[in-house]
């Protein structure tokens, strides 16, 4: 029993990180109907940036978030400006964006990979190998810090969306793009900013990832597949759904991994996806029209 609870605790801790990883993806989809297949590739970019800062300047990966996020925010806005402003109103918009972001992922992986090479990397701050004992359970400090930070980031995001003028504009654009235009929101600019935020979040997640896992360039495919399954499960475009799904899937995957072995843990995401597709295609928090 203790083992099960321990596994669930570990799963819950990872859930927060998954939630941050997927939050940017959901946000971008909700506002612009863009399924950013390159999201995880940017996560890895963030991880590599954190790695570089760690090995070159001994900057702690968590502190590195303060550098990684702004850099990726700007990069995200630039990417949006370059690629997406042209195809906004085209026929079959959603598919186009999928293919476009797919191609983008190839470019990011290709360029990043040739610079960083395929060697498996990881950052190694001290807390990555420590653990705190709480009763019969142990909490790896690396994951603990990552989880706390994840919730801080998510909290900041939610507060931003709720209480600031720009955040409100983003939510408005998500809910009714035409109406947002009518009240004077510059939806193009908001889309660009949102994309930047999405990529910045990916970068932050990458920083956290850098000490939680070992990473290599082509790994982003596994990540994006899991994250995509996650947001479909939660309901595409719903931030609340994403967070709930992240926690649920992470805990379940942890239990599965413990019982059947680590290779089956990603399978949990994919199988959960198919189950939800059969039972409730719009996801936990999604609306029917979102399908």
């Amino acid at each position, binding site marked *: 029993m203790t083992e099960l609870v321990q596994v669930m605790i570990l799963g819950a801790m990872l859930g927060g990180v998954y939630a941050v990883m997927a939050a940017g993806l959901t946000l971008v989809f909700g506002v612009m109907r863009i399924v950013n297949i390159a999201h995880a590739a940017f996560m890895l970019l963030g991880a590599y940036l954190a790695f570089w800062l760690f090995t070159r300047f001994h900057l702690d990966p968590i502190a590195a978030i303060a550098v990684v996020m702004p850099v990726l925010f700007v990069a995200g806005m630039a990417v949006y400006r370059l690629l997406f402003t042209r195809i906004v109103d085209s026929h079959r918009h959603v598919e186009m964006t999928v293919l476009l972001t797919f191609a983008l992922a190839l470019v990011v992986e290709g360029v990043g990979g040739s610079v960083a090479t395929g060697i498996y990397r990881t950052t190694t701050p001290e807390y990555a190998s420590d653990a705190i004992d709480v009763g019969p359970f142990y909490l790896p400090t690396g994951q603990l810090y990552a989880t706390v930070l994840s919730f801080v980031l998510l909290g900041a995001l939610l507060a931003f969306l709720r209480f600031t*003028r720009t955040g*409100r*504009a983003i*939510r*408005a654009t998500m*809910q*009714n793009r*035409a*109406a*947002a*235009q*009518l*009240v*004077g*929101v*510059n939806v193009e600019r908001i889309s660009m900013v949102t994309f930047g935020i999405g990529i910045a979040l990916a970068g932050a997640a990458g920083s956290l990832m850098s000490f939680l896992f070992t990473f290599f360039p082509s790994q982003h495919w596994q990540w994006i597949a899991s994250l995509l399954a996650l947001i479909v499960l939660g309901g595409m475009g719903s931030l609340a759904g994403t967070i709930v799904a992240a926690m649920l899937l992470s805990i379940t995957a942890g239990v599965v991994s413990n019982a059947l072995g680590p290779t089956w843990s990603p399978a949990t995401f994919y199988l959960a996806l198919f189950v939800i597709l059969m039972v409730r295609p719009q996801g936990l928090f999604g609306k029917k029209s979102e399908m």
Partner: protein
Amino acid sequence: MTLLEINKVSSGYSGGPNIVNGVSLVIESGKTYCIIGPNGAGKSTLLRTICGLLRPRSGTIVLKGQRVDGLRPDQILERGLCFVPQDRSLFPDMTVAENLLMGGYTLRDRRKLADRMAAVYAMFPILDERRSQRARTLSGGQQQMLAMGRALLLDPDVILLDEPSVGLAPRIVQQVFDAIARLKAAGKTLVIVEQNARKGLECADRGCVLDLGEKRLEGPAETLLQDPKIQELYLGKRRARPELL
């Protein structure tokens, strides 16, 4: 004083034929203008063209002496013209208060924003009651009031209302037209497109009939209401038909 002038405007949707064909209207400040006509006549299209959602293919639109044809909706909004679409275009998961806040999005002056919101709450007490309710949970009539209230946040000179009573039960329709009366009392200039020709003309000063994209009849609302042809076509009055006896 002429507030809004529409001169021989034609427009249509991408690649298609002209839906609106050479329509000219003159809207006086402080008056209410009602446009009636059959389905597909181009009434909504005309409003969308005036507010900038659609580019006119020919003709000019002059607001307060300045040309506004070809400008973006948010630019026209800045110049004092507001559009309330048929589907109300609310933000369904935002509260009443947040929807109103969004109405004042382009307002940078917080004090003004707060004052205007208070004014809207005063005009529509029911919105005040339901401040923290999500817009999607409001009734049809309340949603219409919210849409109108939101339009007021920017204190526009002209408000375009596209079929405000559509899809609403008769009792609620009355509420909506009471709300419109309040807007009129506040001195707003209104251009209303209405399917419910009687109600529309009753609250208007002037009106016209749009059919197949062209303006047919025009005149003081009173006169139009009395016109037998209009009564027969749009107000449901039957003409005696001997052959059916």
